[in-house]
């Protein structure tokens, strides 16, 4: 995706996003509600044309040409209430270019099995619970082996078992070499399943890259626990960037010499060091910092 921009009337939904999703990665797309995640996905899939910029999907400049290899669950599952889960899937399968006609029925049965809907397959979709609807949407996205799977809020309405299933399915897809794009606001979910992260805020990309890199880059450095905060700050003023931590009695050293030297200096100056540790940010902290800055 290059320089993507989408304007609805006077609303700029997505503003100049450049994002490359490496083949085989699992990209978690994060962002508060209304940050442009779904719009970005819809442009990626050719459901809505970008106002400016271009999309390349699996090497195709026209996303539609790549769609047979793409499975997607966008903006919630869309099915007809008067048809059973199986009939809804049969209808979706009939439209799949890569599915031979004789394979349609067995493929649908397998897909229903995979998402745990085999028992409810012949009940009307109207009577499905939110989680079952979501599962059927997943089944439709995974009807044929895909090279790219796009899941917009896949765990919406799912029970813990369903969430685990989604996690397992994403893991299987990743193991098979497929690329997966998951948008979610469940950060623990993304942290558990994704290799890459993109964070959106008000239509712009505020961070993207490998999850591990982002987390370590976002780490707050060395945390020193001491009763002598003032003395510690004074001591480090010359050699490092240090500031008061969130908790009382904590000094955070974000830049400066290696940890042993900092501790040595502090001890030398008579600061009582109770504890010194690397602060480990989790995705939630990172996300909060990135999206609340503006």
């Amino acid at each position, binding site marked *: 995706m290059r320089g993507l921009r989408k304007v609805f009337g006077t609303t700029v939904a997505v503003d100049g996003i450049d994002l490359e999703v490496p083949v085989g990665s699992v990209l978690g797309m994060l962002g508060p509600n209304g940050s442009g995640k779904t719009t970005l996905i819809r442009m990626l899939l050719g*459901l809505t044309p970008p106002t400016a910029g271009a999309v390349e999907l699996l090497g195709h400049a026209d996303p539609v040409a790549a769609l047979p290899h793409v499975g997607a669950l966008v903006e919630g599952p869309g099915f007809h209430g*008067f*048809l059973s889960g199986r009939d809804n899937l049969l209808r*979706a399968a*009939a439209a799949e270019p*890569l599915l031979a006609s004789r394979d349609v029925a067995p493929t649908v049965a397998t897909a229903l099995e995979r998402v745990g809907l085999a028992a409810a397959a012949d009940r009307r979709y109207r009577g499905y619970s939110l989680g079952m609807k979501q599962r059927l949407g997943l089944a439709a996205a995974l009807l044929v082996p895909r090279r790219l799977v796009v899941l917009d809020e896949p765990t919406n309405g799912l029970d813990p078992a369903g969430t685990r299933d989604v996690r397992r399915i994403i893991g299987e897809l990743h193991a098979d070499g497929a690329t997966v794009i998951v948008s979610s606001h469940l950060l623990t979910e993304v942290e558990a399943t994704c290799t890459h992260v993109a964070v959106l805020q008000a239509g712009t990309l505020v961070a993207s890259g490998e999850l591990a890199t982002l987390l370590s880059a976002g780490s707050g450095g060395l945390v020193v626990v001491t009763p002598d905060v003032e003395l510690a700050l004074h001591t480090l003023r010359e050699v490092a960037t240090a500031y008061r931590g969130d908790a009382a009695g904590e000094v955070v050293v974000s830049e400066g010499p290696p940890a042993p030297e900092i501790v040595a200096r502090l001890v030398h100056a008579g600061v009582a060091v109770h504890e010194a540790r690397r602060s480990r940010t989790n995705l939630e902290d990172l996300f909060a910092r990135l999206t609340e800055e503006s």
Partner: protein
Amino acid sequence: MSETGGRQQAELAGRVGAASEPTAQNAPIGRLLGSEVRWVLRRPRTLVMLALFALMPVTIAIGVVASNRSGGLVGNIVGNGLVLPVVALILAQALLLPLAVGMAAADALAGEAAAGTLRGLLLAPVSRLRLVGMKAFGVLVVAVLATGVIAVVGALAGVLLVGGTDGLVTLSGTTVGVGGALCRILLAVAWTVGQLAAIGAVALAVSAWTEHPLVVLASVLGMVIVFGVLGAIPALDWLQPYLLTSGWTSGADVLRDPLPARGLVESTLRALCYLALGGGLTVYRMLRRDA
């Protein structure tokens, strides 16, 4: 098409060894149409509607037999059962059949958009042109079935309840044989389907612009009523050639002897114009529509 084919080939050539990978860009068209027709026919409202259409000629037959009054279009049915299907078609065409087609068209695009299923089809992907073709086919199937049900049940009810199996007495007073009568009924069916196709195309165009099925239904209803009113205002005579409904009186022409073709042909040509207009607008919009 040849351009995409060429691109595919070039790409295949570029990926040596990847030839075993399936590269189909479209599901077989027959499978798509079959799936669409199944979808249309599994919808409860379609079935209820067809059942009600089947009741209509039966009701007319019972009414005619019970009152046994001649005079007027319906009065012609007395003792003349084979006229019943044609009369029933003419009566239904005024409003009921356009509504049926409008409903099918409303569900076809607006309804699918509202249910979020249009997106699924486009993601499969079904190309946008094929999608229009598939949807138009579904609407046409409804038009043919609704018309066919009225004609078949009408003919059966006419023969069984009203009687007069030795032929059809025309409005002109002559009698045509059973074979000729059936031909005239078929002509009425074909002509009605043609008019409904025009309504369907316009309804589909509206359907392509909205995701509220009710808007489509209201538009069809509004169009038929407004056209009817405009056609009835003498000062607006010059509008007549442009109104689809102004040709709808020619339906009764199949009951005349000799058969005056002019009205039927003119109204069919007019329907073709509406069909082209509606179809063109539908394609224009669907090639651009967000999903």
